[in-house]
């Protein structure tokens, strides 16, 4: 029986540390799972970083992977979400010859319909920026492709979960728990 695979967004909150990218990506690599996109930035908490990774795998596997990620010393917490549980987007840039912008009405229509934005324009080329769902970017790409795209780049997915990810309280709890743990131990045992 084929195990059902889904696209998951993995959100990882970490301390800022050189080498963590290597540690986290190794967890996927070792299990032969392709990371489809990755994005890292500061989070809502000072000195806490947030990673968004997109992978396609089964729920059983992603659960175990989250366990392995959380096991890393500098990882505070990791979550996984299905697409419908997140609000997410990607950004793309297109570089296209300027003359086409004036000659081809279809391009102008595509820009208008897709809500893309012209970032810069000069005599030789113009740069178009489009943020949104992967499908919207793919559609714009397909529309522009026949006219010739000089350069195209798309970012990794960034994603916000609909449910809370209470990192501040987890950090406070982690601190507290250690002290409580000691007290529990001494109550039971010592």
């Amino acid at each position, binding site marked *: 029986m084929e195990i059902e695979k889904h696209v998951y967004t993995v959100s990882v909150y*970490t*301390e800022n540390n*050189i*080498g963590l990218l*290597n*540690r986290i990506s*190794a967890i996927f690599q*070792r299990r032969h799972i392709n990371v489809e996109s990755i994005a890292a930035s500061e989070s809502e908490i000072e000195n806490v970083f947030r990673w968004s990774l997109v992978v396609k795998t089964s729920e059983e596997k992603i*659960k*175990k992977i989250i*366990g*392995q990620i*959380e*096991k890393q*010393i*500098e*990882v*505070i917490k990791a979550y996984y979400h299905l697409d419908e549980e997140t609000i997410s987007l990607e950004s793309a840039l297109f570089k296209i010859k300027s003359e086409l912008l004036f000659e081809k009405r279809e391009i102008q229509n595509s820009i208008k319909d897709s809500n893309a934005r012209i970032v810069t324009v000069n005599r030789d080329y113009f740069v178009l920026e489009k943020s949104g769902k992967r499908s919207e970017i793919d559609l714009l790409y397909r529309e522009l492709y026949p006219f010739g795209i000089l350069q195209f780049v798309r970012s990794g997915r960034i994603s916000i979960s609909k449910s809370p990810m209470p990192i501040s309280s987890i*950090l406070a709890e*982690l*601190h507290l*728990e*250690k*002290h*409580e*743990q*000691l007290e*529990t*131990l001494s109550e*039971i*045992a*010592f």
Partner: protein
Amino acid sequence: MEVQTLKEEKVIFQKIERLTGGEAIVKCLLAEGVDVLYGYPGGAIMPIYDELYKYQDKIHHVLTRHEQGATHAAQGYARISGKVGVAMATSGPGATNLVTGIADAQIDSTPLVCITGQVASHLLGSDAFQETDIIGISTPVTKWNHQITKASEIPGIIAKAFYIARSGRPGPVLIDITKDAQFEEFDFEYKKCTGIRSYNPAPKIDLNAVSEAAELINKAKKPLIVWGQGIILSGAEKELKEIIEKADIPAAWTILGASAIPTSHPLNVGMVGMHGNYAPNVLTNDCDVLIAIGMRFDDRVTGNLKTYAKQAKVIHFEIDPSEIDKNVKADIAILGDAKASLRAILPMLNANSNPDWLQKFSDLYKIEYDKVIKEDLFPTKDGLTMAEVIKEINTYSKGDAAIVSDVGQHQMVACRYAEFNNTKSNITSGGLGTMGFALPAAIGAKMAAPDRDVVAIIGDGGFQMTIQELGTIFQTKVPIKIVVLNNEFLGMVRQWQELFFDRRYASTVMVNPDFVAIAKGYYIKAKKVTKREELKEAVAEMMASKDAYFLEVLVEKENNVFPMIPTGASVSDMRLS
């Protein structure tokens, strides 16, 4: 695991001193209570070695003959003492040679701190002489690693390294230090690490889960405990013994759990796994409650997962949350330190008696005895068996020796037949299966426990993987006992070739040198036994020796280790022949 004293931050070296990075490293090691470390010098770590030279009255550096030996020696030291083992090497090949031992320590949860020298920071990334990205290389096999490029980072990072290595589920940590950081002067002050924000070494015990588990155990008619190294790492031997005695529960062990409960204990029903004992394996698929404590359901323990203990409710005591449901789904998971968890459950358990259930173990033991054990221990054929050598060692050790075994047939035989009275007595490479482990590990074990007899049991294959450590034994005069069980084959692979590859002995025949001459070349007392009538006296002589002693025993070439659960088979389909 030690319970961390989190409330007070102990300042070890309160006075601020102006030190070089190299001297700071040595002071950090002293502050962490390190009295011996294993290593090999080289260009990028010379400033630290220069400081070790000055402190040699306080800290003993053991020069191994290969960096792999340094990590295994540090592992042996850690496994017998419960303390953190320390290994040191230079950059490049020195560092890469540590990797096998580090990987072994990672999979077997052994606390190690490995310190490697690195090229000067301005040369990083330039392919400088003996530069290698050891942080990148060691990442997947370390619990934590870090590169230091400034001397001022040293105290904080070393303190963190020791804390991470020994706390929670222990493991290896690698710290890479650039040469310029070793020379650089800074104001040194050392504080022990007592906690890291993002790291929770021992999860809080859920007392509801504990009482649910107790209820399940109290109702059980056929409970079975399988314990692993978690018992030893958390020092829960006494608690485990109290539980099995109170509730009359048969208890079996994984290879790394061996010796936590004495072999002679009536409720100790033997080893689980591929070459373990017949009764605990077969009855894993008969028990109604399987209580796994500090073990991780390795594939060599479970056999085919699809048929593993499906009839049983599973209770899993485990400190590492990522192990829960990893291989076997737990009906009740109790996260936390084994000792604390067992102390919590003990008063909730009813005194019980399970004579009928225990009888099943005795019955199956009798079958195993008749079909396997009898011929192993009291062979009727001419060729010496590995088991009778172990039996002879038992006679003289009376169960008090620490047995350090390598990997292969002799390892399985040693674990099956060695008798243990004391915990931390079975030191072997479990998860990684590293041939070459035993000889250097025995060196470290003996140094950490000089009052104990340490006997290394090694095959002729594994012995030649780290044979150069005979030089370390000679130089340090560490009085270990070395037994090579020589069957002139890579025996375990040969056994598989015989059983599963139609006896095509591809590259498993060993044409061996004169091992006794080699040992004698290192001025180690040595003897070779080829006949049964010589065995007793030779073992007696070895066990009585005050110095290091090498004993080679020529054993039957093509003996197999049974019982056996073939790969993919169910634990209850264990083969006796």
